[in-house]
């Protein structure tokens, strides 16, 4: 056992005597670890909370105390987010038409569906966790939107090639403009659900919410637009998702400032 191995035990160790045999033997021979174990276990004693706050808190909280029904299970919200995603995507495809879908081979269809579906599911899951403080995370919520877009970029780059198809901006803008209208109502619906939760980090929640809403626009465009030039797809299709995330970041930042001002 070396110093690094001991790190796994230090979290719960109250002193050398409470360490298991191997770790204890190491600590008895290692001055660095001896000092660390002793220093960490000084801890900080529980302070006595001065007289006034606790009764004042009790008065404030217990005055007119009303029942607060616990939110429904997390899977309920997860299903709700995914349902909004699927319904708005279906509406978009019905409205714009599935021209690309008809031209894609089975392999590409499966890969596009799987990568968009996995990204949407992870973002929806993370959004649910944002509503419930102290939730378990499988991915850092701040890194998830970035990770999702990097993953989608790599997937699309593997599926499509850079080609020459008309005018980059003139052909691209209509796609971007067609995708955004599906992101906006989705973001509003997501927000109506999110506000039932605690939303401790409006900024992070805003980015995730915007990214998921934008991903609806991306999905509609992937099924609709038959321009398979990789640059067009990355900028004008995936750009809808990135724009959604950035808009969410901006709105969330404003929200965070307002919360802080209100509590000041």
């Amino acid at each position, binding site marked *: 056992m070396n110093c690094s191995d001991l790190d*796994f035990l230090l979290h*719960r160790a109250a002193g050398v005597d409470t360490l298991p045999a191997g770790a204890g033997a190491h600590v008895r021979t290692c*001055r660095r670890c001896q000092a660390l174990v002793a220093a960490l276990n000084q801890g900080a004693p529980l*302070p006595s*909370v001065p007289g006034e706050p606790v009764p*004042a808190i*009790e008065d404030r909280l217990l005055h007119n105390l009303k029942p607060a029904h616990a*939110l429904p299970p997390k899977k309920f919200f997860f299903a709700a987010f995914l349902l909004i995603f699927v319904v708005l995507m279906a509406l978009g495809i019905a409205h714009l038409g599935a021209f690309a879908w008809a031209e894609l081979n089975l392999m590409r269809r499966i890969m596009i569906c799987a990568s968009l579906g996995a990204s949407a599911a992870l973002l929806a899951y993370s959004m649910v966790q944002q509503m419930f403080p102290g*939730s378990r995370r499988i991915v850092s919520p701040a890194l998830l939107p970035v990770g999702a877009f990097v993953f989608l970029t790599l997937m699309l780059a593997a599926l499509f090639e850079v080609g020459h198809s008309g005018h980059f901006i003139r052909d691209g803008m209509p796609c971007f403009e067609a995708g955004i209208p599906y992101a906006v109502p989705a973001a509003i619906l997501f927000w109506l659900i999110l506000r039932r939760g605690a939303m401790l980090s409006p900024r992070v929640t805003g980015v995730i919410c915007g990214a998921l809403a934008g991903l609806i626009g991306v999905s509609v465009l992937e099924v609709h637009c038959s321009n398979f030039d990789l640059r067009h797809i990355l900028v004008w299709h995936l750009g809808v998702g990135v724009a959604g995330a950035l808009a969410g970041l901006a709105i969330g930042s404003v929200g965070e400032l307002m919360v802080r001002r209100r509590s000041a």
Partner: protein
Amino acid sequence: MHRASELSNDERMEITGAQHAAAYSQQELQDFMVRYQAADPDAARALIRNLSPALFRFLSSQVSTRNEAEDLLQEAWLRIHKARHTYRPGEPVLPWLYAIARHVRVDGYRRRQRIAQREVAAEVLPERRTSEPAGSQLPDFEVLMSYLPDNQREVVTLLKVEGLSLEEVARVTASTVGSVKQKAHRAYKRLREVLTQEQAAGNTASGESA
């Protein structure tokens, strides 16, 4: 010789650490939370009285005056109260509670930075430790923590002072267990360096005085 990851369950059970500040078990806290949601004043009172000292210690670690710490404690309980419907019965209470308190602490810290110049320091918080352990040359815990960046200090404090598990700290800080382990590992590495330097300095000083 075995690695830490190969320890038996019995050995793991032996390793007792800093205890949760709460005098109640996890199950009792969960029951109190459910009753608090159902507007039972006794349960609410029990939670407030039992958890306030630990919350106060957690919140006061980044403020300089007792008044500020008291304000943060009040604010934390108000936010906990407003968010009590987001507690899911059966889930651990402390990560839920500390996750809310952590945001109050962060907001308070940012607010304090903004108004620092306008504020006149009032009553200063008393020293955490009134005396060094007998025969100890160890630096004060708070002094040691000041060598760490904020995110590492937060993790070590939650683990070693508040007595939360790795899993609970990950929940409180909205990160993964792997990320918490990494931060703790970096913090311990840095603390070993600091303690080695302190010991070397102590030895030099005692050599000179002899």
